[in-house]
């Protein structure tokens, strides 16, 4: 797995006065898969892993790539690599975390090769965060009324387009955290970055999406 470089601006530690951010623990059922059998090369156990994890892993890859056919072939390649590299699994993370890391890396490589680029740059995401002066908002956020866009499908279209515009690493974190609801620590392991970096990017991604939606959802001033 190639190491992901942490972004410079994320290395400046954020600090809260005399408190620490509680860490979430990454645990949960691994399903009924017999890990020892799997590590010993048991095909039946591997088959179970394919059946159990394929739908969710497919959804993650589709949302990163935005291409169903390519996602299916990336899924197959992911399981092939996992099968061939099973002996390298060190039990330092959950098996699924290890599997998803393989899938996400393959999806990213495919995205780079196809040069499908998202329209926002990292610096733009940065600029879409609110401005503060002396610790207070410079501009008062105007109240929202999403129902002013009456059709649900139109609202969803706006959100979908917003997510597609995010740079890939931000989009991937939104998919894993906000859609698939993996814990911050699990996402950090899947992406091989720190939990702090996951939190910062997740926050910026949500802030950028909020900014993209703002002009559409802002309540009209009363006449």
């Amino acid at each position: 797995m190639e190491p992901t470089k942490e972004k410079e601006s994320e290395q400046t530690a954020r600090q809260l006065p005399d408190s620490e951010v509680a860490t979430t623990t990454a645990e949960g059922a691994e399903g009924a898969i017999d890990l020892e059998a799997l590590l010993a090369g048991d095909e039946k156990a591997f088959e179970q892993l394919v059946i159990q994890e394929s739908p969710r892993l497919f959804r993650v890859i589709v949302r990163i790539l935005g291409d169903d056919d390519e996602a299916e072939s990336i899924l197959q390649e992911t399981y092939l690599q996992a099968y061939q590299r099973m002996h390298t699994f060190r039990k330092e993370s959950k098996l699924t975390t290890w599997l998803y890391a393989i899938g996400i890396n393959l999806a990213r490589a495919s995205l780079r090769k196809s040069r499908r680029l998202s329209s926002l740059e990292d610096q733009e995401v940065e600029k879409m965060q609110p401005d503060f002066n002396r610790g207070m908002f410079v501009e008062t956020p105007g109240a929202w009324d999403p129902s002013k866009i009456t059709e649900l499908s139109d609202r969803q279209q706006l959100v979908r387009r917003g997510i597609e515009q995010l740079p890939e690493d931000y989009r991937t974190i939104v998919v894993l955290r906000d859609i698939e609801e993996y814990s911050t620590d699990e996402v950090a392991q899947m992406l091989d970055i720190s939990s702090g970096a996951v939190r910062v990017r997740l926050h910026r991604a949500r802030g950028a999406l909020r900014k993209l939606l703002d002009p559409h959802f802002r309540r009209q001033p009363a006449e």
Partner: protein
Amino acid sequence: MKALTILKTALGLAPGCKKVNEFLAEYVDGELDDKTRMQFEDHIGLCGCCNHYLDQYKTTISMTKETMEVNVPSQLAEHTLTFLRKNADFSGS
């Protein structure tokens, strides 16, 4: 804002908008310790800006969740197993 909260914020004893915003992900995701969470609640309860921002932030998250439906092909796992039988030393069942 209440005078005491304003004073505390000015003295750096309570978080201001910027600090609250910086840790909004942790706040929303329930990852803050109790003391900090209560400080944030105090601020947000009294600050219209943070109140609106939080509301929009949460709306953004919930819309993200409901919007990205994916149809999973019905034979997905079976296709993968066929692929493995063809390309790896895998016979399966």
